[in-house]
């Protein structure tokens, strides 16, 4: 680790003041930050601890739920109201990382975790995301874990988080607070496609902090599912993760929201699948037919071509599980 200074924000204004210094990074749970610091992937001059800010806890009501951004993942997964109203999110969280990490990691920090691309995490390797202009080592290298959707010639790093896929399927909105005041960002607008500037990873502005995740209420709790496929049974990143939330009228799909992780450069919504399902009776055939368009627009590389078929089959399986047919 390169030496850095440390300061704890006592309140939100203190966080903004500290953030106006040069090369500042906020730290909350620290589970990804410490890995990045250990490997010199990030080298902040000052680390600002935001754990004392009051954005902790879960409120649930008729109009949905509000999760404080500093709430630990295990506390969300253990919350009885969340288990009842948002089993999809709880399921995704239970399959995230390890128990130790879930006790430490925060909701906001989880959304902002960095890619697991091998070249991003190795400071000696070329990487346009970490070191703009140095090239992309993954493009013709070890790209098995990389994205098949949303990549550019500059970057094919996959977004790795499970929770974000669930939040996209649940139509979540983020509360954000910055030096210029509060605003809302829809979960689908948080992460940016790499395009020609993969180093700009999110649409947060300097100093802005995610304070809460807002979940609308809905009629999908009984028909939702998170399916995570990975190289070992637990404590592993998704090769493909699929979140499905269905609202049903009897056997007919009234509304479908699906998102995938591990396959896109951002949490990846699956609009073609949603359109193919909506208004259809849910059957083995309609699920297979809808899943056939899951990888529309995919541009795989030599080592991750398997993800195209894996994504389609995972989507099919997750739809059937959500609909109670598997």
């Amino acid at each position, binding site marked *: 680790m390169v030496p850095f*200074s440390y300061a704890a924000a006592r309140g939100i204004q203190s966080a903004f003041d500290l953030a106006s210094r040069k090369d500042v990074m906020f730290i909350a749970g620290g589970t990804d930050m*410490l890995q990045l610091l*250990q490997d010199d992937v990030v080298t902040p001059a000052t680390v600002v601890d935001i754990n004392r800010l009051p954005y902790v806890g879960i409120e649930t009501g008729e109009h949905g739920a509000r999760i404080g951004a500093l709430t630990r993942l295990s506390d969300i997964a253990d919350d009885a109201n969340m288990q009842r109203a948002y089993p999809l999110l709880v399921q995704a969280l239970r399959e995230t990382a*390890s*128990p*130790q990490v879930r006790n*430490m990691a925060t909701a906001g920090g989880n959304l902002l975790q960095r890619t697991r691309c091998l070249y991003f995490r190795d400071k000696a390797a070329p990487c346009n995301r970490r070191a703009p202009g140095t090239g992309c080592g993954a493009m013709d290298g070890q790209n098995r874990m990389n994205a098949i959707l949303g990549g550019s010639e500059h970057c094919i790093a996959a977004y790795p988080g499970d929770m974000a896929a669930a939040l996209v399927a649940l139509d979540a909105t983020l509360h954000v607070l910055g030096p210029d005041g509060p605003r809302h960002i829809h979960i689908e607008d948080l992460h940016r496609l790499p395009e020609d500037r993969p180093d700009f990873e999110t649409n947060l502005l300097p100093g802005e902090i995610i304070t809460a995740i807002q979940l609308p209420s809905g009629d999908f709790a009984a028909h939702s599912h998170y399916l995570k496929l990975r190289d070992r049974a637990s404590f592993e990143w998704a090769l493909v993760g699929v979140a499905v939330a269905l609202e049903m009228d009897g056997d007919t799909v009234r509304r479908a929201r699906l998102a995938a992780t591990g396959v896109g450069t951002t949490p990846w919504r699956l609009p073609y699948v949603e359109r193919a399902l909506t208004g259809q009776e849910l059957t083995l055939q309609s699920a297979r037919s809808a899943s056939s368009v899951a990888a529309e627009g995919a541009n795989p590389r030599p080592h991750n071509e398997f993800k195209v078929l894996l994504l389609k089959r995972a989507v099919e399986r997750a739809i059937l599980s959500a609909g109670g047919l598997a």
Partner: protein
Amino acid sequence: MADRSDANQQENSRLDAPSKDKMGAVSGRMTEARRLTEEALHAERTGDDDRADTLFARATRIDPQAVEEILNEAAVDRESHAGHEPDASLAVPQEPPAEQFEIELLVNDTAHRLTVDARTTLLDALRDRLHLTGTKRGCDLGQCGACTVLLDGRRINSCLTLAIMVQNRAITTIEGLVKDGRLHPMQQAFIDCDGFQCGYCTPGQIMSAVGMLAEGRPLSDNAIREEMSGNICRCGAYTNIVEAIRIAAQQER
């Protein structure tokens, strides 16, 4: 983790070759003493005298002769460079001394005041500063669980935690489990069930298992496996670890 162990193996073979030493234990001690001494020299260079003293003392306890040899080598190195103009392009940039912070850690019900660099992880503070070496360093990246301790009763990876961020919160390490000279039931269960081979991952396994019960997790064999997935055992003692946790959980009820 793989990189680190490769590096250790290379280091071992490099040291083994000239001495023709086939005694793994002896070369292991020497390697450890060498590593500690080199770390101490580095700490001295970066102005962290406290850490340097601690590391020299530890290295000397392990192998005083090796420490002396390395210090002589370092002195010869310095002499051979004297009189030459240093080549600026080869110079390793000197890190400015890191900012120091006074912190207080509450470990196993005892408060400790210490001065740390902001980079100091809880794992480093426990092992290198408080000499509570029961907590083990494996991967240093949160992947192996050897460094598991309890923070306010819940399991965390001490390698992913900055010491300065957990001041005055209740930290429990494996050393804190013994009460009135008696092993914690989970420790006893690991012994009774033969829940380890080399023992390196064991403190982390036990802390994770204690935390798992404190967190009220389900206790089927499958649930135990899932709940213990943050702790890796390279000897593969998993079957007996699951049994130990099952038995300790039954006793607790």
